[in-house]
């Protein structure tokens, strides 16, 4: 039976990008639909009535939301090139650090980006403590998934691109070579990996978008 796989996302959505990567790594054909969140399509409202958010994966008419849930669904449905370990403890660790990335790392880095002066300094301390834990996770590994890109690499992948954008706009170095050599190494390996590299949203567009977001925050 022909599989029908659709992904609803936005052009800049970091969480949507995770799904693009997961699908590409598995070699799955899919249709990508970029939504305008200021004018949500009937399709989005139909497939994600509770949250009305992206990304949403639609597989043969059935929809799944929440990017980390979607990646696990993809991994369980298409078994080639597994993203999560079969070992329950390794799986638990990958899930934990992915949530940590979303709940703590992202918000702490965002705080650095939108604040100034003393608040920015404090935010930077918190961000660095969080990043240190990720750095420790990379000891002896090329990727968070080990030798190959796995679930946690996809979950943290936004770091590899967004950090450079935010650092450029806020003129502050968050991930420096002395403190985070492994993280920097990972960012390079990951962002240059073939299927990952070709999917990044246009950098200039991202710079503009985040500049506007930053200005709006300080209003």
């Amino acid at each position: 039976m022909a599989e029908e796989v659709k992904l609803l996302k936005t052009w800049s959505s970091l969480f949507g990008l995770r799904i693009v990567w997961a699908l590409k790594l598995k070699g799955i054909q899919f249709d990508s639909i970029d939504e305008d969140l200021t004018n949500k399509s009937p399709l989005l409202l139909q497939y994600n009535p509770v949250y009305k958010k992206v990304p949403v994966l639609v597989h043969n008419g059935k929809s799944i939301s929440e990017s980390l849930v979607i990646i696990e669904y993809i991994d369980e449905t298409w078994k080639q090139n597994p993203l999560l370990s079969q070992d329950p403890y390794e799986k638990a660790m990958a899930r934990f650090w992915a949530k940590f990335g979303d709940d703590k790392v992202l918000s702490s880095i965002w705080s650095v980006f939108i604040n100034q002066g003393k608040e920015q300094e404090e935010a930077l301390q918190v961000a660095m403590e969080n990043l240190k834990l990720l750095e420790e996770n990379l000891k002896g590994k090329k990727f968070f998934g080990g030798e190959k890109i796995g679930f946690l690499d996809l979950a943290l992948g936004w770091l590899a691109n967004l950090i450079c954008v935010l650092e450029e706009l806020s003129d502050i170095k968050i991930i420096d070579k002395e403190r985070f050599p492994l993280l920097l190494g990972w960012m390079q390996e990951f962002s240059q990996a073939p299927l990952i590299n070709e999917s990044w949203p246009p950098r200039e567009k991202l710079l503009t978008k985040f500049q506007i977001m930053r200005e709006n925050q300080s209003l």
Partner: protein
Amino acid sequence: MGEEVILLDFWPSMFRMRVRIALAEKGVKYEYRDEDLLKGGKSRYLLQVNPAHKKIPVLIHNGKPISKSSIIVQYINEVWNDKAPLLPSNPYERAQARVWTDYIDKKVYDAGRKLWTTTGEEQEAAKKDFFEIFKTLEGQLGGEPYFGEENLGYVDVYLIPYYCWFHAYETMANISMEGECPKLVAWAKRCAQKKSVSESLVDEKKISGFVLK
């Protein structure tokens, strides 16, 4: 092989109730150690095993720590997979279960908290919000006895600890859970008849007492 399973937690924590129910459903023997977060912070043991979050509950299985109740419950389900499966075998249904536990995480605790941290108009808005969330969950139940359909599943285990908070919610905000969500209250009572649940839930009067302090 000797299994060593330790659960570190704080007694009113609803997150630990989830883990206790999951362990009971699977018939796993474990040692429980209470971390009294109010008495003066976290024990050195907790800080040592859970540096990332310094939070509870923490399950320690043969020396390896796991935290966050959603991750712990899934872990328990995967390791002790010989009985009482908590997640369906179908990937789509598993994804739906995970989406609903994520929804519960994002919405229920904060909505409940607002019931006693707000007053007047703000509290009225909080009540509306609260019931909208519970009615959405009630809708998900459909005509089944449990969210897990025939048996207790992941979503049931995730949500049922809130049952012992119903009394506190009703007292603090002058609302009636049964009045607004009768099907959900019926579901909760049904779950509470299971030994794994009744032995893991904290007495609701104790919770109310704790909240009122």
